């Protein structure tokens, strides 16, 4: 990692309060290009709040955000989308009762003529992405309802969507919690491939082994503060565990 490059996304002095509860206090967070950062910490440390601020679901009480060194404002999902930030939640990334295609293009539908959906083009793109980007089998039609897919297949659809829409940075909030061991392996492999393609990722997890396997750097939060930032070379799973437990 070269330290002189400007970060892809930088959050400075971020605080967020919900009434009297201070979820984040003066938090600093940055992520560079081609970097996978593990966001660690116990329950209630403020990891999800930080992700929500980056994805535009929540707006910070104070602090500012820089994208490639330029000030940016993220007030909505649309804002974060324009900055190339895509969030993959553990359960809420896709609508179960809708088809893969309708989910893939949710909010970004392709139309032709008088505003009608271009079903043919969208179906072709979905199948192409599923087959060539995430290389997932067992899905033979874009009309399949998402609720019939396994957890791993759903993650794959969400990742294929992120890749197709030229995401610069993925936010993965507990992505492995609902996956089988084999599906988790596949997901971690995808993260590696995405990094090779120039996509950065923030990976939130409770599983330090998953984090250690796939992340370049670790940021540890405790009670709304960023307490440590360590690169993979200078730490170990045991040390990370000790830091989280002791604070």
């Amino acid at each position, binding site marked *: 990692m070269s330290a002189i490059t400007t970060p892809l996304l930088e959050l400075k002095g971020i605080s967020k309060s919900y009434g009297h509860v201070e979820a984040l206090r003066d938090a600093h967070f940055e992520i560079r290009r081609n970097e996978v950062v593990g966001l660690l910490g116990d329950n209630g440390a403020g990891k999800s709040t930080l992700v929500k601020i980056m*994805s535009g*679901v929540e707006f910070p009480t104070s602090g500012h955000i820089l994208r490639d060194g330029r000030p940016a404002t993220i007030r*909505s*999902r*649309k804002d974060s*989308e324009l900055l190339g930030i895509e*969030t993959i*939640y553990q359960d*809420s*990334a*896709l*609508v*179960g*009762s*809708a088809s893969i295609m*309708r*989910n893939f*293009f*949710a*909010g970004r*539908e392709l*139309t032709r003529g008088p*505003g*009608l*959906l271009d*079903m043919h083009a969208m*179906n*072709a793109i979905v*199948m192409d992405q599923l*087959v060539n980007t995430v*290389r*997932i*089998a*067992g899905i*033979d*039609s*874009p*009309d399949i*309802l998402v*609720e*019939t897919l*396994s957890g*791993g*297949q759903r993650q*794959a659809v969400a990742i294929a969507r992120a890749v197709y829409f030229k995401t610069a940075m993925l936010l993965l909030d507990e992505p492995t919690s609902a996956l*089988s061991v*084999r*599906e988790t392996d*596949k997901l971690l492999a995808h993260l590696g491939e995405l990094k090779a393609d120039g996509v950065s990722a923030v990976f939130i997890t409770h599983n330090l082994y998953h984090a250690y396997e796939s992340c370049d750097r670790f940021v540890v939060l405790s009670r709304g503060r960023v307490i440590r930032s360590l690169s993979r070379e200078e730490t170990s799973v045991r040390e990370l565990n000790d830091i989280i437990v002791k604070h």
Partner: protein
Amino acid sequence: MANYASDVDASALKPRGRRWRDLLREPVASICLLFLLFQLLCVGGALLFPDSFRYLTPSNVALLQRAIPVIGIVALGVGLLMITGEYDLSVGSVYTLAGYSMALLYAAGVSPVAALLLTLSIGIVIGIVNGLVTVKTGIPSFIATMGSMLLVRGLVRWLSEAGAVSFRPGGAFASIFTGSIFGVEAAFIWFVLLAGVAALLLHRSRLGNHMFLVGGSERTARAVGIHTHRVKVVAFALSGLAAAMAGILSITRVGTATPAQGIGMELRAIAVCVIGGLFLSGGRGTVLGIVIGACILYMVEDVLLLLRAPGFYLDVFVGAILVVAVIANTALARRSAR
């Protein structure tokens, strides 16, 4: 359990066309089959016993064609809203109000076309108010629209105290809604046209895609950047618009507005949607299902009347069909989810 590309052959990755088996798994397929079966039985019975079962007489066919569109158009609006995940109980009241609005405006000297546009606007405005109250306050639409149902019903009562109102425009305006071409009633043509528009809107437009997603999971829809509140308010407006359209269609045929007309219509419209394969939980359904649902509901009533069954059988049969349809749809959804 997922298989991955490394251990499957390439042919399994190719997209396939939709097969018949997949079509039959759609909830709407079972209701279409039921409808066809029922239709065959009725036509067969009418051919075998033309004197005792007058299903195919011109007057009965015309009656069906005039009766189905009224509830059918209301159900189109209610159904789109149901797919978006909300209910509208005020449609019956709006339907009745539309009749009064047409009659009173016409009596006041407003031209029928202007009265029509004003009446449709009233329906849209009531729908928008229903929508805004629901999304801004976060109360269930069941309650919000129950309030507006009673409120509008009260307004209709007040209007009706001034005396009976009639709406009998002559010439072109009346024939557009009450005429017939080659034995097909104008009302039925309107229904088919509106169903076509609704199908394009729901299945082939961006708004329709958002309706499905908002109805399926509002939280996820918001997370992917869809303006869920706007989608819902538009769906409410369409529901109000459809109810007003049905009211106009009805008053042009009947000619006189009475305050009790639309009572119970909201639940019948929901019943039509449920028979047609829509889910009360939202996020699923087809316009074809709504159309078939409306046809089945009226055919059952019509057949019972033709068989001279006592009146209470109507409710019993409609109730039974409703419950059987929901059980069948839920079972189908569970099977296809496997």
